[in-house]
């Protein structure tokens, strides 16, 4: 394909960041083959908030990992702004993650012996266009806790540090794997609010995967997955505020 970067999508008029075409992923465990993804195709648009819903084992994490460049498809293509990720070698994928991707995990994965601010600095250190770590912590409302170690923060606070860490690199896309999975409702809502704010203020595309259908209401589009396939895609014409979500 020789089209210019970010081809406009006919239906929404927005630019496509990711074009996922017939991606399959299978794992070979001894003699059995496990199909994690069977033929998934999807476009992800610039600056949208996308929620991928599905039960565990539906392939949503695999899809996210492939988009994020920490896993590779068995067949099919993932185009990131027209570049085929499957052509990347390990180092190229690392550089891709470094420049373009921000990851947020269910279990935060902060470095336990670095303070909140140092955890953010760690990401900033390898990025050319990084934010000031204090600014990143400001985005998640944690300036006052910046000198605390992860063990001194609550789960919700740790997740916000993780988001600040992901955002500090100014990634094009923020990939969140069950970001509220380990949190109670109120902490979870604070985290989702932060993600919504980041989506609004930084122009980053935000992809959230979850099995909590309520969260889908805050998205521009909701992708339903089961059994390694994309079952349907629902477009929310009106995004719900995080505030209004209850579960």
């Amino acid at each position, binding site marked *: 394909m020789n089209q210019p970067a970010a081809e406009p999508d006919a239906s929404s008029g927005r630019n496509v960041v990711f074009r996922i075409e017939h991606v399959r992923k299978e794992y070979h465990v001894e003699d059995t083959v496990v199909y994690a993804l069977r033929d998934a195709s999807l476009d992800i648009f610039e600056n949208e908030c996308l929620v991928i819903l599905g039960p565990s084992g539906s392939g949503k994490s695999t899809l996210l990992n492939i988009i994020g460049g*920490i896993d590779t498809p068995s067949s099919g293509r993932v185009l990131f702004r027209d570049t085929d990720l499957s052509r990347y070698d390990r180092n190229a994928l690392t550089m891709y993650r470094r420049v373009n991707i921000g990851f947020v995990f269910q279990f935060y994965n902060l470095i336990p012996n670095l303070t909140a601010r140092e955890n953010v600095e760690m990401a900033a250190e390898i990025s050319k266009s990084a934010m000031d770590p204090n600014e990143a912590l400001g985005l998640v409302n944690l300036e006052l806790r910046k000198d605390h170690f992860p063990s001194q923060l609550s789960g919700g606070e740790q997740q916000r540090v993780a988001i600040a860490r992901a955002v500090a690199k100014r990634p094009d896309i923020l990939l969140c794997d069950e970001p509220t999975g380990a949190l109670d409702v109120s902490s979870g809502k604070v985290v989702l609010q932060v993600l919504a704010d980041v989506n609004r203020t930084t122009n980053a595309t935000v992809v959230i995967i979850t099995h909590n259908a309520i969260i889908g209401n805050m998205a521009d589009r909701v992708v339903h997955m089961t059994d390694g396939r994309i079952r349907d895609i629902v477009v929310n014409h009106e995004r719900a505020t995080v505030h209004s979500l209850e579960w």
Partner: protein
Amino acid sequence: MTILTRKLLRDIWRARGQSFAIAMLVCAGTSEYVGVASVQRNLQLTRDEYYADCRMANFFISLARAPRSVADDLREIPGVRNVQGRIVKDVNLGIEGYEESRTGRIISLPDVRAPVINDIVLITGRYFEHRSTSEIILSHAFATANKLKIGDTITASINNRQHTLHIVGTGMSPEYVYMIRSAQELIPNPDRFGVLWVSQTFAEQSFAMQGACNDFVGTVERPAEIDRILNTASSVLAPYGVFAKTNRKDQTSSFFLANEIRVLGIATAIIPPIFMGVTALVLVVLLNRMVRHERTQIGVMKAFGYSDASVAAHYVWFALVLGLAGCLAGYFGGVLVVKWVMQIYIRVFQFPTFRMDIYPIIMLQSAVLTMVCAAAGAFGAARQAARIEPAIAIRAEAPKYSRRIFLERFNLIWGSLSFSSKMIARNMARYKFRAVFTLSGVAMSTAMLLMGWFLMDAVNYMIDFQFSQTQLEDVRVLLNGEQGKDTYHDLQRLSDVKAVEPVLQYPFEARTNWRKKEIAIVGIPAQSTLWRLIDTQGNRVEIDKHDFVLDERLAEQLGVQPGDELVLKPLMGRVPKERRVHVTKIVKQYLGMGSYMEIEALSRVLDEPFAMNTALIRSEWQRARELDKGLRDVAAIASVRIKEDSHANLKKSLGESMRAVNVIILGFAAAIAFAIIYNSTIVSLTERHRELAALRVMGYLPSEVGRLIYNENLLLSAIGFVVGIPLGIGLCGLIVMAYENDLFRLPFKIGLRAYALTILTTFCFVTVANLAARRKILQLDMVEALKMRD
């Protein structure tokens, strides 16, 4: 197979790299212990049996000449079992096809084979058949080195007459297991020195000593009484001019052999404990981590009804299985060590047969030692496992608490550190034990390396110092007895001679108020240029007729300093006349111990105006060998030594054995460094694999993640290195003390080269361990690591 056994085997397999490293440590320690302890016992038993079978003498007395019947008087001394008189003389030998001179020691044996003291073992050929003919039995090593066989002849100049001697057999004697002419030579030179056993009749006739002898050898009932017996014997023999009385302990060959056995004993005592200690430490680190890691599993097992004891035993078994595996591998290693080291000894020591056994009791000892250390290493982890409460353990562990470390109080320093440096600093503070463990492993290995490199340098330095700074002649000539000025002038007139210096060496008993020692005083010319004395500061020392100079070590042993008085009693000559002298100067000497006087002053002590028994010759440029040929026919000469050969020979043999020692030390140091650094790196990787995976996901390259680990290792290694150097200097001091004997003292000088090589080798070990860690970093499974909670 129970489930726990299956888990045990799988755990070992999963941690196979570390398990292998631990087993290798045990294997190295066991091979060394089993091998060297067996070699030591083999050497000891071989010697004891040989000495018993051939009736090795308990004492040796050499004198000018005495009637053979005096042996009967000596037998009367209480405690003496048997005494025999014999003739022992060094002669110059000629062998067809070889130009250089050789020294042969002629020793008389009964005409008809009898069970004598210091009996020989015939290796080939037969005993004498024709009593008065010139049949000889040649020492086996000399025959082999010179390609001589039964039926060949060699010539010897005996009492100014050339004799043709017929070889009828080759043999060995317990007196010459370590075959050197005198202790000063240090290293056997089998092609230049050999023993010629001849019939008593032939010896008496050719040396004109009918009914007489110049050497008595005896055995005693109780070796503890040897000093009393020797004193009584010397007073019995006083009228005949005793040259030297020696007990078995000090007899040259016996002394070297005993020294070797002693050094082997030191090696078995030092090295295995180091290995076992390190093994226990590695196990502590590995198993503690394992218990922490498997906390939930342990909780579940207990919840299902496994007892505390069976869970604890599981971890002890882990250690024991590895210990056992290493031990078994070590037994094979031990067999190889025995084979290898005994090969070396077969070349060095002349025994008719060698024991090559491995001893079950030694194997058992090492197994017990290993098991105790393994169990000790596992103890802490096992106790932890036993104490885990199932109800608490099956819940997730509370997050590890981090706090500010000491360094953070210094804002200026802390602020300037990169986040990775901060991470390393905090990590070291968080896992203090492991940091100390890595650090001490590197320190230990550094110390061992320094010792290895130092040993090689020290031996070279010692030899080079002797041959390039003090011993400056090209050829050293030993004369038959004391000679006068005539011989000196004769030597000067020979062709290829550039300069000659006379030397007189004479044995004395030196006595202070409370110490007594037999010494050889060397008389050298006042302006000697061929025998140079050097003081402890490295400056040249001039000697004049009032001087009495001692080397450092001898002065230490006698407990004297410059200005102190000594009483000297000549040990040869018929009239023992005592003389008082004052120590004037102290000199430095590594090989042998020396005391020096001006040659004419020394001659006067012996009531002679001038006497010499050795000549030092500087030959014309590169003419030493031609000179040697010319000297062969000079009647007054007993033997000739070319310095270049002595130097090369000493360097080759000592250098070779030191290289072997260094290879072993290097191997051990590598095993320790690798096992420790590799293990703590792997443990660290396992514990931190989620945070490292998070870094990888964030876009850190494997090399950038690796740098965190490498830098931590490098930093710890650098500190360990700094700690290890003084430790190594201490070890070198210990080894200097352990090696010290009357024959040599290693110079306690650690050169820059040794330090540089130590740095280099330590760095290599760290790099290898890092490379192994690198593999693990590349294999980090990001997806897997981030999905799971610890």
